[in-house]
């Protein structure tokens, strides 16, 4: 039977037989054994029906709304063969201590079968401060690796050929400065720009919305981003110039629908700013990538990824009139939900992570990070990171879920949920468009307030016992055999080492060249026609530090102060 015949069958109305079933079977069952709750909801508190039937997908047209993998509207995936040619990229996020420490962890993960790298930076780096700045005290190397200079970056990727391993860097406010260090380090390795593959997160909008690691106000920050779009479009065909991230939006408390809506609306904003900066949409849109959360609600998450691809296709085709199919295809990375991990009985987190990761895979992710089971306590130990990698390998090689493309496609429930999530996203798009765009919505605190409200409602649902968290509000244990893992400790010797290295660098480098490069950067930043990216690379080559580059632009761009929402 062809798929078209299947579509004909599933779109038949079943109202009569459904009514019959309700009267003959359901009513009696409910009398004998009432359901345990009045309402069943997802982790996003979205109501879910008892049963989904062909009646729920009557308005869905197979060719228009579902289609085939590798073809519009890409609901079923962007590759015609799914994971049958090769599985997703196993990209474990790693970074702690000094560049030396993280370089060792990178090599450890690569030795054990990881296929791509992903770098976590510490908070001073994320905020554009050097390790020796007073504000960095106590934070150097704590929640990621400390990178203050081109030399730190060279140590980080020492012995790792950057034209062979793809690299992702989770950096936003100072993304273009860190990218400049990375490119200067690659240059020292003798690698050509066109051969480097990887991703710069570079997504400042979700920082204002959720993660809150910012430096400059939204508008100049958007200019730095469009400068990287142009630079990458011209010189780096294998590089993703941005990873538009819903992950942090979800972690901050958003529902699945809000994660989907705000992330894709951020994507629309980046496209609009790129076009306004004079770029042709098909020139840079193919290198935009996305990043989603994988939370506990298995089906809702799968529907979210499928909806995301379909919405993006429609946005790119209809709103932006893109003609390159690469511009229509949403590629995304997935990370399991850090916020779902529990301190109580932490070994249980391995199970949560496996189920979340499975949702990401069935949803068709291009790359995946599994959280370490100990991450509600600290950064993952080597053992926790290895188990997380093994979780991916078990899904890829043992479960059989990679045998067929989009295995849940055609499920009444999944198709209905996909469509509902898409509708919720369009509603948010209309609201945000009416405000003038995402930058304006952020300035008005709109997505921030929506997320805060959802976070609070979820917390209340947990405290009322409507949402059960195993080991937290049910099945609790006083002292747990399932607890107390060893913890990765980062001590203050990392900060000490960074201070010594930076002080030595500042003494050794050519001070005049540093000043000249920073002056040129400032002059370029003042002229919106100038691309700041090559100027930043010159700064990196001259051994300007991260803090110096960021500080140089503060008087030109200003600093962001969050209004009180």
């Amino acid at each position, binding site marked *: 039977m062809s798929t078209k015949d299947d579509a004909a069958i599933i779109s038949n109305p079943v109202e009569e037989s459904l009514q019959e079933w309700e009267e003959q079977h359901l009513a009696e069952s409910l009398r004998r054994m009432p359901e345990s709750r009045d309402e069943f909801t997802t982790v996003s508190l979205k109501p879910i029906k008892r049963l989904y039937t062909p009646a729920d997908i009557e308005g869905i047209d197979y060719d228009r709304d579902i289609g085939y993998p590798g073809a519009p509207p890409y609901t079923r995936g962007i590759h015609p063969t799914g994971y049958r040619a090769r599985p997703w990229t196993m990209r474990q996020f790693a970074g702690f201590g000094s560049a030396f420490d993280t370089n060792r962890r990178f090599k450890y993960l690569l030795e054990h079968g990881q296929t791509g790298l992903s770098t976590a930076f510490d*908070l*001073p780096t*994320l*905020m554009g*401060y050097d390790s020796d700045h007073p*504000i*960095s*005290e*106590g*934070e150097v190397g*704590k*929640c990621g690796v400390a990178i203050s200079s081109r030399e730190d970056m060279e140590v980080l990727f020492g012995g790792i050929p950057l034209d062979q391993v793809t690299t992702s860097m989770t950096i936003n406010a100072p993304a273009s400065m860190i990218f400049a260090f990375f490119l200067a380090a690659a240059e020292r390795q003798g690698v050509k720009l066109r051969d480097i593959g990887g991703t710069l997160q570079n997504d400042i909008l979700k*920082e204002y919305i959720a*993660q*809150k*690691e*910012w430096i400059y106000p939204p508008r100049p920050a958007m200019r730095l981003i469009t400068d990287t779009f142009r630079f990458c479009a011209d010189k780096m065909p294998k590089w993703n110039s941005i990873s538009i991230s819903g992950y942090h939006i979800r*972690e*901050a*408390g958003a529902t699945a629908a809000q994660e989907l809506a705000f992330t894709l609306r951020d994507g629309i904003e980046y496209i609009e700013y790129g076009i306004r900066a004079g770029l042709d949409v098909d020139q840079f849109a193919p290198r935009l990538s996305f990043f989603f959360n994988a939370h506990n609600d298995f089906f809702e998450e799968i529907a979210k990824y499928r909806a995301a691809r379909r919405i993006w296709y429609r946005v790119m085709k209809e709103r932006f009139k893109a003609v390159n199919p690469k511009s229509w295809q949403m590629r995304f990375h997935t990370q399991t939900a850090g*916020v779902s*991990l*529990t*301190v*109580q009985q932490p070994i249980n987190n391995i199970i949560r992570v496996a189920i979340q990761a499975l949702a990401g895979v069935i949803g068709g992710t291009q790359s995946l990070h599994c959280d370490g089971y100990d991450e*509600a*306590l*600290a*950064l993952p130990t080597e053992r926790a990171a290895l188990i997380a990698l093994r979780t991916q390998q078990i899904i890829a090689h043992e479960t059989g879920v990679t045998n067929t493309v989009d295995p849940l496609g055609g499920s009444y429930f999944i198709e209905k949920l996909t469509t509902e999530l898409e509708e919720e996203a369009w509603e948010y798009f209309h609201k945000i468009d009416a405000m003038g765009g995402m930058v304006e919505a952020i300035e008005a605190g709109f997505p921030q307030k929506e997320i*805060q409200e959802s*976070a*609070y409602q979820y*917390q209340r649902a*947990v*405290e009322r016992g409507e949402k059960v*968290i195993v080991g*937290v*509000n049910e099945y609790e244990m006083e002292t747990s055999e399932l607890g*107390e893992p060893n*913890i990765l*400790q*980062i001590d203050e010797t990392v900060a000490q080492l960074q201070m010594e290295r930076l002080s030595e660098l500042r003494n050794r480098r050519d001070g005049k060249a540093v000043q000249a490069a920073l002056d040129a950067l400032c002059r370029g930043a003042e002229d919106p026609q100038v691309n700041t990216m090559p100027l930043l690379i010159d700064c990196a080559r001259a051994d300007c530090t991260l803090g110096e580059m960021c500080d140089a632009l503060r008087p030109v761009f200003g600093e962001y102060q*969050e209004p*009180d929402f």
Partner: protein
Amino acid sequence: MATSCFSFSTNCLLPTANLTIGRAVTLYFQLLTFNFLLIMSEAKIRVLLAKPGLDGHDRGVKVIARALRDSGMEVIYTGLRQTPEQIATAALQEDVQIVGLSILSGAHMTIFPRVLELMREKGMDDVVLFGGGIIPEDDIPKLKLHGVGEIFLPGTSTDEIIKYIRENVKPRD
């Protein structure tokens, strides 16, 4: 506290103008009401919540701020990236009875002792410091030795935090 006393006393004085019963009785009831409301307003605990360091993850602190407010406390939230000096100064100026720090970045062993030291320097010996976040269990006894009242880990219910605050704030004269 001054603000709430003022608003209560204004409200309870207003009806007296319209009363026809004896002045003494009115005053008696008025004073009774006033005293009762004063006690009520004194029961309104003042809390400072702060996000020190560079960490921007404020989901938890915002949920807790709202839960404490809903339970009837006066909550002052500092916003992000406050230095220990700013936090101690805000605690003094706002005349709070308890200070809560939210730290998810791993900088807790540096920040908690520093805030405590500054609070003591400013004479806030009766102000309790507590906190929460991503904090390894082994560090909790060390922080308590420094004088931190309690550390709440992920998964703590807001009721538990409300109960802790009610039981541990020092009464004011």
